[in-house]
């Protein structure tokens, strides 16, 4: 492979890879007359590097997609700084491409050609303005598209002899997902009715087509057929209740109690009478009403008196009379958590990403990054009608009168974890995150037998978790198609990395061995049983010192990990062939 590569790119020894990258870059640029990339910036103390781990060189473009959030351009902080400096930017950018390669080869000490090619397999550097176009219009002209993808394709075709034909992907989403898919080397977009290998479908397509679509062995789609068993609020609760009962029968009360992470919930109208009974038993508490099938906080309201809900029933009935083609919408009434944990007086919930590759056996991956979404207004139970206080969905917050898109309303999970650690100590945080792991596992187990297992399917779930003042996590809901639209530069980075790593795990390129415990930001959380953090077989005898393989809210050094992973995979492959 290695020799094939260097032969094809050029006869020169090490600098071949350099020229290779330069060529790729300039091919993507409108004008071919670009100065060669300046030498990589020297590390101030190369000798110390291994010991102190100095931060990466400034402005270093990540080896994967290098992107800038358009509204902010260069300065992260708006006030008092020049917002954009178009002049020197591209220069810096190109230089960093060089820097990335330079460091790369230095670290591994292997031939440059080999490693450079390897890096290319999982990412290319773009310049920011190209990304801009991409983001705004998603309308790359055909010619440009070919320009971008062309060189990569040939590059890969030349370098990997056993590489199959390009992977044909299809998607209807026009957000970060599109950016990631389009820039994945060796992948080509299929439009309309063309044949595809990978389809990131939306839920409506799934409903219409999944039953009568024949799929080849290697084909993958992004949803399970009946994902709604987990993602519709009423089904989720039903499944959890049943699972709890089953656990109580089989493993006792203690084990069943581990399922008590969802607030008391009733399905309306079917469980209306049960609900009224419960309501009468606990006067004065607040309930929240959610439509089961809607998302993004639409149609949600809070109430404390039964009268409110009667009025509402009447209202909905009336409207139903007018348009009798609409059936009665299902709602769940859920006990409202009245003591949420507040930061700076604000309510928030957590968004965590879980990737399920199969249900039988259950194989689930947990992503290290995620975020806390803050409500813009302050939490108080007095203003029960003000839904902006209570709902932290970005979609709802966006319609809030004082929503200011420039003002962040998210914290990355790392920051959140750090904040909690400084307030409550690492032990409490550890417990909280263990409890959250439990939520992910138990909720997936509860639907394990109901969901139609299909090896073509994988699904990326967005879990919404609320934390109360006793640092107990509550499961609010699970989303089958979490928002992939970016609200800020930071958000964009998170989502593109998340999707890239999802694709690494889905592994259309068949590079993984299947024994990996970590791929990029994803940690294998469950593999038909708990996964141990240590290498070797899981030790289930002494549960005491079993450390699960989850790192939610921990440092996500995915780039480094990916580099190591794919390097070692290459080495293994070479050794075996």
């Amino acid at each position, binding site marked *: 492979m290695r020799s094939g590569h260097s032969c094809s790119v050029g006869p020169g020894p090490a600098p071949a890879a350099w020229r290779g990258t330069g060529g790729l870059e300039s091919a993507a640029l409108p004008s071919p007359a670009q100065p060669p990339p*300046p030498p990589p*910036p*020297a590390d*101030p*103390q190369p*000798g*110390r590097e291994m*010991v*102190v*781990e*100095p*931060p*990466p*060189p*400034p*402005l270093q473009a990540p080896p994967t997609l290098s992107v800038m959030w358009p509204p902010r351009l*260069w*300065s*992260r*902080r*708006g*006030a*008092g*700084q*020049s917002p954009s*400096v178009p*002049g*020197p*930017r591209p*220069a*810096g950018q190109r*230089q960093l491409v060089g820097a990335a390669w330079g460091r790369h080869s230095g670290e591994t000490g292997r031939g440059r050609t080999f490693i450079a090619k390897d890096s290319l397999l999982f990412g290319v550097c773009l310049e920011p303005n190209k990304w801009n176009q991409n983001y705004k219009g998603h309308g790359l002209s055909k010619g440009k598209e070919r320009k971008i993808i062309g060189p990569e394709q040939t590059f890969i075709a030349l370098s990997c002899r056993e590489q199959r034909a390009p992977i044909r992907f299809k998607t209807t989403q026009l957000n970060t997902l599109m950016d990631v898919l389009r820039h994945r080397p060796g992948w080509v977009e299929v439009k309309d009715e063309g044949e595809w290998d990978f389809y990131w479908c939306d839920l409506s397509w799934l409903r219409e087509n999944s039953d009568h679509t024949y799929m080849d062995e290697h084909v993958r789609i992004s949803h399970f057929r009946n994902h709604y068993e987990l993602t519709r609020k009423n089904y989720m609760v039903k499944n959890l209740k049943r699972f709890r009962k089953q656990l109580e029968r089989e493993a006792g009360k203690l084990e069943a109690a581990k399922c008590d992470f969802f607030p008391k919930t009733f399905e309306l109208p079917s469980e209306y009478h049960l609900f009224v009974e419960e309501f009468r038993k606990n006067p004065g508490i607040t309930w929240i009403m959610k439509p089961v099938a809607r998302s993004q906080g639409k149609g949600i309201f809070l109430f404390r008196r039964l009268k409110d809900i009667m009025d509402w029933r009447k209202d909905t009935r009336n409207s139903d009379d007018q348009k009798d083609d609409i059936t009665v919408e299902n709602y769940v009434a859920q006990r409202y958590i009245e003591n949420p944990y507040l*930061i*700076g*007086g*604000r309510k928030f919930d957590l968004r965590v990403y879980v990737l399920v590759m199969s249900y039988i056996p259950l194989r689930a991956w947990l992503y290290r990054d995620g975020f806390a979404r*803050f409500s813009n*207004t*302050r939490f*108080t139970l007095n203003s029960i009608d003000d839904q902006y206080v209570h709902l932290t969905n970005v979609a709802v917050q966006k319609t809030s009168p*004082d929503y200011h898109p*420039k*003002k*962040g*309303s998210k*914290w990355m999970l790392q*920051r959140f974890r*750090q*904040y909690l*650690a*400084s*307030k*409550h*100590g*690492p032990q409490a945080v550890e417990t909280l995150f263990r409890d959250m792991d439990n939520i992910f596992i138990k909720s997936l187990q509860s639907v394990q037998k109901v969901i139609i297992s299909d090896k073509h399917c994988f699904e990326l779930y967005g879990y919404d978790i609320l934390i109360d003042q006793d640092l107990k996590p509550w499961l609010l809901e699970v989303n089958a198609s979490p928002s992939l639209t970016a609200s*800020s530069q*930071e958000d964009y980075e998170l989502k593109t990395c998340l999707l890239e790593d999802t694709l690494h795990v889905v592994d259309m390129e068949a590079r993984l061995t299947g024994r990996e415990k970590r791929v990029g930001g994803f940690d294998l959380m469950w593999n038909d049983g708990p996964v141990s953090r240590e290498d070797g077989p899981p030790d289930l005898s002494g549960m005491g010192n079993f450390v699960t393989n989850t790192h939610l809210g*921990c*440092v996500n*050094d995915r780039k480094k990990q990916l580099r190591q992973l794919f390097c070692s995979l290459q080495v293994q492959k070479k050794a075996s062939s």
Partner: protein
Amino acid sequence: MLQEESDLSLIIAQIVQKLKGSNLYSQLERQAWASLQRPEIKLESLKEDIKEFFKISGWEKKLQNAVYSELSVFPLPSHPAAPPEHLKEPLVYMRKAQGSWEKRILKSLNSMCTELSIPLARKRPVGEQKELLNKWNEMGTDEPDLSLFRPVYAPKDFLEVLINLRNPNYENGDSLSFRTHLGLIQIPLKVKDIPELKECFVELGLNTGQLGIDDSTQVPPELFENEHVRIGQKVLAEQDSAAAQQYIRQGSPTALRAELWALILNISSEPEDVLYYEQLKTNVIQHDLLVDSLIYKDVKLTASNDDYYFVFEDYLYQVLLCFSRDTSVLSHFAYNSASPPKSYIRGKLGLEEYAVFYPPNGVIPFHGFSMYVAPLCFLYHEPSKLYQIFREMYVRFFFRLHSISSHPSGIVSLCLLFETLLQTYLPQLFYHLREIGAQPLRISFKWMVRAFSGYLATDQLLLLWDRILGYNSLEILAVLAAAVFAFRAVNLMEVTSLAAAEAVLADLSTLKVMPLLQIFLFATVT
């Protein structure tokens, strides 16, 4: 020797004087009286027994911490005959410069007052008081129209003043000579060079374990972190300020930081302190000051727009509004070169007996002031405790970042230290930037004035402030600023304009401060 002894007795006398009026003093007295009931206190050895009792019951530690705190706040007295203004600032031209700078600020404040025809202070009508009380915890939701207000000054303006500082006794003429400083700061002050800094910051050395380096994921926690955390817990159990200060030089574990800082600053949230905070709050509710609008404006402009700190907006108002009413802050003017501005009751201009300090704490907020508070919100969520910590941090450190003085931690010395370090260790870079009209200080000044708050990621900032507390000095800010330039030197060498240089240094949020400091101080070949 004799001189030292008399110095010591002078210091002791000063501290005794200070502590006599304090709460601690009366508490100790009460404890001593109460201890007389105890069986182990004998009349014949009364003094020794009470001392022993204080030792056992932990009161001695508290006294020790109080003395230590006084020692670290107050400058050592110079000659007993020196006038009090020498305590503020020994150099006459510095005092003068500070005086005229204050006049300018006041003039700007007054003209804003007249322009907008808003009084400096007014009593709120009862209805308004109630309303404010109701939304005390959500002041950030209020969006008053502040478009007419502008910050009294920004760090930029202050830098211009510092650039124009001259020492009248140091004549170097208008023409360039070898004595002309290449940097922006043109006055000679003694600043440390790297060997001296190495000696001063010896605990940051390569052979000492550091949080911010040795707790990274690659290093197994058994090597340093676990043991360091264990020692930290021990220090906290001992309740010893001096030990805590020494300990924190190697960084504070995240979970212990809040308590360690409180211990070093000698803040214990007693009921009286909570009461004091409540009084200040009442004061805010009763009176409306012009500076309130300035504070609002500043928070909206800075912290609310910050990716990290936007959450804490409400806390910032709760702290800063109370701070502006706190007359106990006035006492720090004894050792601050600045003096509190005075205002006169209407119609009595110039009559000393009608003069009041305005604002009551004597501190006029400038653009970015709220960033001194924001990082502390990460550690304390009790408003009264947060308030106390901030006030103590201000009267110990932050005031030095916006008053003109010759103190080694003063902003002038920091600027000069920064420029000298760059000129000495990165002469090419300094020359290049100077040639293209991008004097490095123009970029780094705002970092130093804000003590890097809002520029670094929170965890990194707290690691930096650990060292400020640990060394009781702000010099580390100048060292870090120089280290940042050194770190991005290669990119900076390629820029050709100030704007481009600023762009290279616009985002510091990815930097890791401890490795930078360590490399700059200890691993640079000199």
